[in-house]
């Protein structure tokens, strides 16, 4: 085992010989790395997950370049219990006017923006007059607004009880979370008094609010989950060891590992994202498990009257390789993500692999060094695990051993059938992606999406990027007009907005077409066409749907777009934006990850074969290793769920951790088999490894349960999936693997 893991655990021997030097060195290095945490940033762009270089991703990149300078939009959803009255409208108009003074606000679009086409004198009056009529005439005014082509049901609900204000923002590359929060608070300071005094509910939502929520939640999660995880780890340590020195030795490496990881993020400029936010919890748990194993061995050896240095040396020799192997398989699992077409996923994989290495390094350096410094020969350490708990673990191991021994054929057949059935679901199950799984469940901005969906054109919008040039100044390219008209007629689309909307509004007036672009407010121009006049944006509103459900809609629309592409071959017409990107890319990315997981499985089975020196045993371990993954897939399939990006990432990482169970059982079996027959070897193997594996699974699961405190569904899913795989993997390693070995291996 030692040679297979490149002798990495031998680092521990150096730390054993030079503990003070090592500790000083680690202190200096850690101080440097920890300083990176001061530069830690958070990223809110979930769109990058599915940027896989396909045509939609490329069009989205071109769109961002052509329409750069926009800082996104904030949407205010204003709701009343009854149709708006005069006083409410008057106050809402004041809100529209006052919000324009908030820093970084470019402009506001609302029902008050509606104007009549210019008259002969070029005057374009607002539909809502400066002096509002009395309440008896307000319904007619609202009806008039609702019929306006630029307002329609995009900004006003058909029952006149809800309206939307769209706030356009400046692009600010240096925007920090604090600055964005200050801006949102400044807007709330304007809207909240109005809401209170006029019985309105005003909710901030839209892209800016949702991305802000993601950042706030990531920030909170980072502190909350790590704090809970650390407290849990220390509490378990106290229960196990009951000595401050041992608790300190076992707890410090995981905390240091997380500090190194976050510091490295900060130093390398890598932001914390909705995806890699789970890494600190994972690293804490992995490092804690390894640390506990080592300290447990050291404590036991000291309790048996061995000198501290000898005890540490034994721990390094016996537990070190297992820790190295644990880390190695997890690193392989993370590195397998490099096969993904998504840059964000590859980045996650590399960050995860590096983080796992940090975890191992922290344990193998700090535990030996601290043990030599803090522990004394002859210290009397009480039983680490209470007798009752230890006996429970032993009883449980015996139960598994008895079942495997008494009914190996039945267990093997059930396992094989279960595997075959569940394996089919793994490949057949649908994929799903919903950007809302990256949003906080309790976020008002998130909850407002459903209300907007219900009352307005649709909470989601997709973009069509038309790259073409108009024939005359102020006119629209024929290709753009064709796309706009097609989308207007599409039953899947509830509303369309583009430069053609402005032209329709002005049709029949005396407005000079060449002057129209200059007369449009700047923020409308920015939303309609690029500054060079070569790129045109069409926004189509649709009800919110997860990516898998929206894909058929996009396919239908794409078929119509193809006809327009054929008619105007010089124009480039393509979907763009996160909604279309995820609809097209998510199946590719997720299915690709399923394949990379399969590759990780094959790689680690080969590693197992080399490790135990037996191809037969390695192949036998395939089903127990794969069964936890396919069972999760079966569970999702039977409940009508689909497999998401988060699920398949969790399966990959969990596999990397869970395979250690089979490695430990096989390794012990390999040793015991030399002195006994198959059945006896299995029983002894489970007796010796079972309690440790069960205890480790309990520890890991407890740590992962912390993820359920997150506000982000994706973090909760990751934790729950990993936890489920770990539990299935334990049962698989202690029941299915022994049963298969007994069934297949001849005496």
């Amino acid at each position: 085992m030692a040679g297979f893991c490149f002798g990495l655990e031998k680092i521990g021997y150096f730390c054993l010989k030079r503990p003070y030097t090592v500790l000083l060195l680690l202190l200096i290095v850690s101080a440097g790395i920890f300083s990176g945490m001061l530069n830690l940033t958070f990223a809110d762009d979930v769109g990058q997950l599915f940027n896989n270089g396909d045509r939609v991703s490329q069009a989205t990149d071109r769109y961002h370049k052509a329409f750069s300078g926009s800082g996104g939009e904030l949407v205010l959803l204003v709701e009343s219990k009854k149709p708006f009255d005069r006083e409410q409208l008057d106050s809402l108009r004041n809100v529209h006017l006052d919000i324009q003074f908030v820093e970084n606000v470019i402009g506001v679009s609302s029902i008050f923006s509606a104007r009549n086409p210019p008259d002969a004198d070029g005057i374009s009056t607002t539909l809502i007059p400066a002096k509002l009529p009395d309440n008896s005439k307000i319904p007619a005014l609202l009806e008039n607004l609702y019929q306006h082509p630029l307002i329609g049901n995009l900004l006003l609900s058909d029952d006149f009880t809800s309206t939307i204000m769209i706030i356009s923002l400046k692009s600010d590359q240096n925007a920090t979370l604090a600055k964005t929060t200050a801006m949102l608070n400044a807007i709330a300071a304007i809207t909240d008094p109005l809401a209170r005094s006029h019985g309105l509910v005003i909710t901030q939502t839209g892209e800016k609010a949702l991305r802000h929520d993601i950042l706030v939640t990531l920030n909170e999660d980072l502190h909350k989950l790590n704090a809970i995880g650390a407290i849990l780890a220390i509490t378990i340590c106290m229960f196990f060891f009951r000595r401050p020195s041992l608790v300190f030795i076992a707890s410090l490496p995981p905390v240091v590992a997380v500090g190194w990881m976050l510091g490295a993020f900060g130093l390398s400029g890598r932001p914390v994202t909705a995806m890699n936010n789970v890494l600190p919890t994972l690293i804490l748990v992995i490092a804690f498990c390894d640390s506990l194993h080592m300290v447990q061995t050291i404590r036991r050896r000291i309790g048996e009257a061995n000198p501290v240095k000898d005890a540490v040396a034994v721990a390094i020799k016996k537990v070190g390789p297992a820790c190295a192997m644990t880390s190695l398989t997890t690193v392989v699992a993370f590195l397998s993500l490099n096969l993904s077409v998504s840059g964000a996923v590859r980045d996650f994989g590399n960050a995860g692999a590096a983080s796992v290495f940090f975890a191992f390094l922290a344990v193998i350096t700090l535990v030996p060094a601290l043990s030599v410094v803090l522990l004394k020969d002859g210290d009397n350490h009480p039983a680490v695990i209470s007798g009752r708990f230890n006996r429970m673990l032993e009883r449980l191991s015996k139960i598994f051993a008895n079942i495997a021994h008494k009914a190996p054929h039945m267990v093997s057949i059930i396992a094989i059938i279960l595997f075959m059935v569940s394996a089919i679901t793994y490949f057949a199950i649908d994929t799903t992606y919903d950007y809302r799984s990256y949003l906080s469940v309790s976020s008002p901005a998130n909850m407002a999406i459903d209300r907007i969906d219900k009352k307005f054109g649709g909470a989601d919008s997709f973009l069509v990027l038309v790259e073409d040039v108009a024939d005359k100044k102020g006119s629209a390219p024929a290709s753009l007009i064709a796309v706009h008209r097609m989308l207007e007629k599409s039953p899947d689309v509830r509303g369309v907005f583009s430069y053609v909307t402005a032209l329709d509004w002005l049709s029949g007036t005396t407005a000079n077409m060449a002057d129209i672009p200059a007369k449009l407010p700047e923020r409308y121009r920015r939303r309609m066409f690029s500054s060079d006049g070569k790129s045109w944006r069409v926004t189509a509103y649709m009800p919110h749907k997860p990516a898998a459900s929206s894909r058929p809609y996009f396919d239908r629309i794409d078929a119509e777009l193809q006809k327009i592409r054929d008619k105007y071959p010089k124009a480039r017409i393509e979907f763009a934006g996160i909604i279309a990107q995820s609809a097209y890319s998510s199946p590719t990315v997720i299915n690709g990850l399923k394949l990379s997981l399969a590759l990780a499985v094959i790689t680690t089975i080969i590693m197992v074969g080399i490790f135990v020196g037996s191809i037969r045993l390695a192949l036998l371990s395939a089903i127990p290793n794969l069964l936890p993954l396919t069972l999760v897939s079966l569970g999702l399939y039977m409940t009508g769920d689909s497999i998401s990006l988060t699920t398949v990432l969790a399966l990959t990482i969990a596999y990397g951790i869970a395979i250690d169970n089979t490695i430990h059982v096989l390794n012990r079996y390999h040793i015991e088999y030399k002195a006994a027959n198959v059945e006896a070897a299995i029983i002894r193997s489970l007796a010796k490894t079972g309690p440790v594996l069960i205890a480790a699974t309990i520890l890991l699961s407890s740590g992962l349960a912390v993820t359920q405190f997150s506000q982000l569904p994706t973090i909760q899913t990751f934790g729950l999936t990993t936890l489920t795989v770990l539990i299935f993997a334990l049962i698989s390693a202690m029941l299915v693997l022994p049963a298969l070995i007994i069934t297949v291996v001849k005496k």
Partner: protein
Amino acid sequence: MLLTFPAFLSVAKAEHAGFMNKVTGTWKGRGYLRLKAKAPREPVSCRFDGSLENNNTSFKVRLICLGIDLKMETRGRLKYDTGKHRLAGRLHTVGIGEAKVTGHHNRDSLILTMRGKNPDTGKPATTTLSIIMSGNNNLRSTMTASDPVTSNRFQAFTAKFKR
């Protein structure tokens, strides 16, 4: 098109010093703006900042009024003659250009005359701005301009401000 210039003169003599102190600072207000004589007035929200500089010999001003897709912003620095209570200089209005400014004030009011060019016609245009203070915290401002076509005067801007 109207030329709009806010200008706040401070009272130079000792008995008028209070007026200058009263108008310095940041003011917020609401009012109406009319871009053309025939156009209806439109509601606006306004902010202005005024500050004395260079030992009370110049006054820096910035006024911005925002309506529905409507913006008026004027800024500049005016020389202030403390003895004669007179103001002179140039102010710039975004989208319109510079205008020459002259004016005078008394204890609680200011009259300012701006001479520039109509951006649509290029012809000379004159605008008159009056500002009246009542109490320490109330400001009222109105502006009249000339219709470039008929030469008739019309009220182009009116607003009330508080600190």
